[in-house]
């Protein structure tokens, strides 16, 4: 039982990270029709800044704030300079551009900070004993921070005027403009929010993985699996999908095979998509011929 609890908590912590990244991807996608592949590398850039600040003696929490800020600023810069000029609805062009940006940012990080793995500090050290299992406090903090961030995003979209406006833009940018909502301003806010969530997720993930320029490629990959599982257009879907991927991944590694964890997770995802192509929470769209 204690072993199951340990594996479950660890899986939920990993899933929370995938969920946060997935949520960021969905927010940006819904607001601007951009699948942002550069999100992970931009968040890595923020992490490197946080590590540099830590090396200068700055507190970890302030480093995390700096990481989020840098990621958001860099992301907005990317949007304004290379994504916005493409125009609305250029899904595939934008996809390719964000892939290119991702490679450029990885190379910049590699040139400035090198490729040698760097450690990123835990927010909290130690373990808590529960039902005979020594649960890492860092995992519990990861779950709590991610839960709070998700709750704030949920509140923002459900209960505020800004959230309503962003949902309106997601439904139809042209209509939103007609009724007086600034689509570009809302798009910038969506990018900032999405990238902020990704940076936060990166700060929660990095203590476990260490930091190299490509450190966030694996969680981005799993976050994509999560959003396809949950439904590309659903924010709930992104969170639930991410959590499902994290938990299944760990359970498969523990009870099936540590080398087949991805196979298990992605087989499950494919199975779900075969039965429900729009994902668990996604909405099926129809086009009039």
């Amino acid at each position: 039982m204690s072993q199951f609890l340990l594996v479950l908590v660890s899986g939920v912590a990993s899933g929370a990270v995938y969920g946060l990244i997935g949520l960021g991807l969905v927010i940006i996608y819904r607001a601007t029709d951009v699948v942002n592949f550069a999100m992970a590398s931009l968040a890595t850039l923020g992490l490197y800044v946080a590590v540099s600040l830590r090396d200068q003696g700055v507190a970890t929490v302030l480093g995390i704030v700096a990481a989020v800020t840098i990621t958001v600023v860099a992301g907005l810069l990317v949007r304004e300079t290379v994504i916005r000029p493409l125009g609305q609805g250029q899904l595939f062009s934008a996809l390719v551009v964000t892939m290119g940006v991702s490679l450029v940012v990885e190379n910049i990080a590699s040139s400035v900070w090198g490729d040698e793995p760097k450690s990123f500090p835990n927010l909290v050290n130690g373990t808590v004993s529960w039902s005979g299992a020594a649960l890492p406090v860092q995992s519990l903090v990861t779950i709590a921070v991610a839960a709070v961030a998700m709750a704030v995003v949920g509140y923002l979209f459900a209960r505020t005027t800004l959230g309503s406006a962003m949902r309106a833009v997601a439904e139809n940018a042209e209509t939103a403009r007609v009724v007086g909502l600034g689509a570009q301003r809302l798009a910038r806010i969506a990018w900032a929010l999405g990238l902020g969530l990704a940076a936060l997720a990166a700060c929660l993930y990095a203590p476990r993985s260490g930091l190299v320029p490509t450190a966030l490629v694996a969680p981005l990959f799993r976050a994509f699996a999560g959003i396809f599982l949950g439904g590309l257009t659903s924010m709930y879907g992104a969170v639930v999908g991410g959590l499902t991927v994290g938990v299944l991944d760990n359970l498969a590694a523990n009870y099936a095979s540590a080398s087949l964890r991805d196979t298990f997770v992605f087989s499950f995802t494919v199975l779900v998509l075969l039965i429900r192509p729009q994902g668990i929470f996604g909405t099926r769209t129809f086009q009039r011929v």
Partner: protein
Amino acid sequence: MFRTMRKFRRAAGTTAVLAVVALTANACAEQDSAGAGGDSSEIHIGAWLPTTGATASYGVPQKAGAEAYFKMINASGGINGRKVRWTVKDNAADPQQTVQIARELVGQDKVVAIVNANGTSQAEAAFPFVLNQSKVPILNEVGGNESWFKPPRPGLFGTQTLYEDQAAAIAAWTVQDGAKKVLVVHSDPAAFVNVAKQVEPVAKKLDPSVEVDRLTVKYQTTDYTPVISKVKAAKTQAVILILTSPEAAAFLKEAKLQGLSLPTYAYAPVAAESTVSLAKDAAEGLKAVQLVKAPSDSDPAVKEFRTAMAKYEPGQTAGFLALWGWSNAKVFAEIVKTIKGPVTADAIDKAYEKATKVDTGVSPVMNFSPSNHLGTRSVQRVVVKDGVWTSQGDFYTPPKRG
């Protein structure tokens, strides 16, 4: 008058054309006489190294270590009065790019040998052009496998103890430490699996009662919680890690969190500074084998390395990877020193085949022969003590495998 002028112009034109042809021919002849490897005052060698991309963390320090050595010997007059010119080109660990670089180094730069390059598949992509077609030797490559040296190939010489022999050395170490039940935790790509498979036969050869199991882990796993659970359930007495450095660090951290305290051993890729910096105190007591002595050693040869690194490559850490590069450069220099006359590809090839007892002071003593192109099977045992890799004893040669 006009006819005379025309004749004069024609003669002048012919003379000019002949002069150009003669000068060109002379220039070509001069270029050829300089021959491969530069003029008689220098030895021109080359290498492909990943100084950008995913494996740049290996290529950059490896380059720095060799650069430091070559700068040091050039400052003291070079090899038998000849300066070493080492041209390094970035292949970003890409085999196709490596072939292109090989053509540049051999065809345009006219290097006499490829020395201290990096990468198994990268070198293999360049073998047909460099070794077979151009007859330029590839020396002291970081990487390689058993098939490179059995049977020996003309022009291919190695200085790195094979990963399979490293596994044999770890197996012997666990048995010597008294472990009766050993678990090998390894990543799933074939390169890791093949190494992990070498542990059991050697362990059983030394002690038939030893039980060896293997646990395969998905490559680049960062969450080791389920893996540690499995290790605990296996009730093993020792663990051997055939993983990358970040994976091993993740294993060690999770083991510490879950209160798993077992003697843990690893092969050379784990015996890196990054393992200690990532795992911090969880790495304390980790045992591993290395190709060279620990860079922190008080040995004079290692001190010389640290001094040269501080002087010639001040921006780089004097760590294990830099010491690999240093050692490879030094082996090359020690062998080339024995060449009387022009330093050509053929002369280097012959010198390597005759080279015995090549002692760099930082790596095992190398012995080559026409039937043995791999200089050593030995390793250095190292242990993390107070957060620093420390050498334990002298170089150790594992029992023969198979």
